[in-house]
């Protein structure tokens, strides 16, 4: 496993005060919170920040981390020294866990659930609920799908070493699910202690970006490029929707930006969403003489001034 320099995460020296750590965390966490930031790296950065903060904000954990010495550099191969945390007592059931997110194997080895010490006999508690994010394709929401997701869980082997295990879950994505919704998988969270029941796993659904379709809740938008004469005279075209190809009648006099609604062709559900086809009129370049003649003929035929709206 690789060593993680939690001070480097915040750009702080090891001598930083608790206040400086708190300020640095807040500043960066505000910037990278996935609900606030549009940066595609935001989620990963935010997780790193949370993990580093979980260690450094707690004076006991910070002291234990510090005593491993400053000779370690980020990314170096690392094994925790035996009894590395001897003399430090970590308390609290939520210790280290933060938010049920998958922390790095480095964190898990040092501060993970199993590193909290042996469980007292006769202790019962429900396992914690876990949260994870799953990206699916738009087509999956139209048809339903099966997805395999990998979650990382730490466990102790027979020798008492902590190992990260990949836990694969095959889940069924119900038809009609939308971005931002959550799937609850009962009993798939953290195992309970003693006779306590297991926690649940919550999966937040998001869509992979699609080159053609834009999604807004249950409605889907599609840009449809049209030649000026197709928009003006009307036409009938085959248009690919997430649900297969449909024959679309573009009425004569279709204006750019005025969308055509295909009722019920959005994400399925009760009620289903709509599919909006947004016409984009594309002007063909006039290069050959006959093409230029066509534009000249248009100029002659129309009593049209594109700048009429600018007149006061």
């Amino acid at each position: 496993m690789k060593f993680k320099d939690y001070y480097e995460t915040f750009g702080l020296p090891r001598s930083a005060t608790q206040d400086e750590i708190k300020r640095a965390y807040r500043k960066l966490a505000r910037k990278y919170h996935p609900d606030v930031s549009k940066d595609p790296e935001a989620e990963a950065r935010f997780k790193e920040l949370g993990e580093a903060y979980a260690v450094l904000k707690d004076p006991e954990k910070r002291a234990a981390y510090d005593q491993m010495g400053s000779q370690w550099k980020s990314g170096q191969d690392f094994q925790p020294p035996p009894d590395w945390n001897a003399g430090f007592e970590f308390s609290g059931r939520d210790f280290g866990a933060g938010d049920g997110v998958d922390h790095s194997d480095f964190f898990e080895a040092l501060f993970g659930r199993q590193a909290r010490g042996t469980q007292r006999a006769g202790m019962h508690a429900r396992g914690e609920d876990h949260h994870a994010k799953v990206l699916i394709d738009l087509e999956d929401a139209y048809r339903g799908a099966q997805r395999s997701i990998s979650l990382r869980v730490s466990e102790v082997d027979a020798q008492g070493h902590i190992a990260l295990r990949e836990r694969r879950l095959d889940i069924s994505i119900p038809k009609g699910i939308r971005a931002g919704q959550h799937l609850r998988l009962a009993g798939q969270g953290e195992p309970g202690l003693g006779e306590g029941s297991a926690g649940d796993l919550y999966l937040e659904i998001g869509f992979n970006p699609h080159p053609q379709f834009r999604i807004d809740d249950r409605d889907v938008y599609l840009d449809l490029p049209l030649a000026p004469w197709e928009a003006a005279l009307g036409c009938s075209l085959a248009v690919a929707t997430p649900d297969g190809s449909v024959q679309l009648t573009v009425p004569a006099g279709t204006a750019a930006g005025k969308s055509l609604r295909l009722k019920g062709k959005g994400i399925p559900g009760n009620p289903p969403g709509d599919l909006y086809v947004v016409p984009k009129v594309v002007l063909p370049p006039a290069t050959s003489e006959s093409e230029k003649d066509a534009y000249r003929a248009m100029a002659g035929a129309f009593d049209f001034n594109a700048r009429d709206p600018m007149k006061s």
Partner: protein
Amino acid sequence: MTNTYMQLIRGTIVEEEIHLTLEELCQACRASEEHVMAWVTEGVLEPIGDAPQEWRFTGPALRRARLALWLARDLEINPPGVALALDLIDEIAALRAQLQRNGVR
């Protein structure tokens, strides 16, 4: 690392099929009941039902409560501040959705 294969698991869509009780919401987002009650008072969360024992939270409350907890715990924002921050975050999300609808990425 070893792999474990499991059978196909069917989940329930929280937003459509489940109403969470106060206890379930607290368990799911690790917030205390005091926190959740303060957020309900401030209008951050709007459960169905009058008394806390009767409260039922719908799916969007899950995301809002997790965000509210982060704002309260890590940024030490008080409940009225949490309510304001969430309103603004919602507004930004709505504006971004509008931009997206119009094809601005």
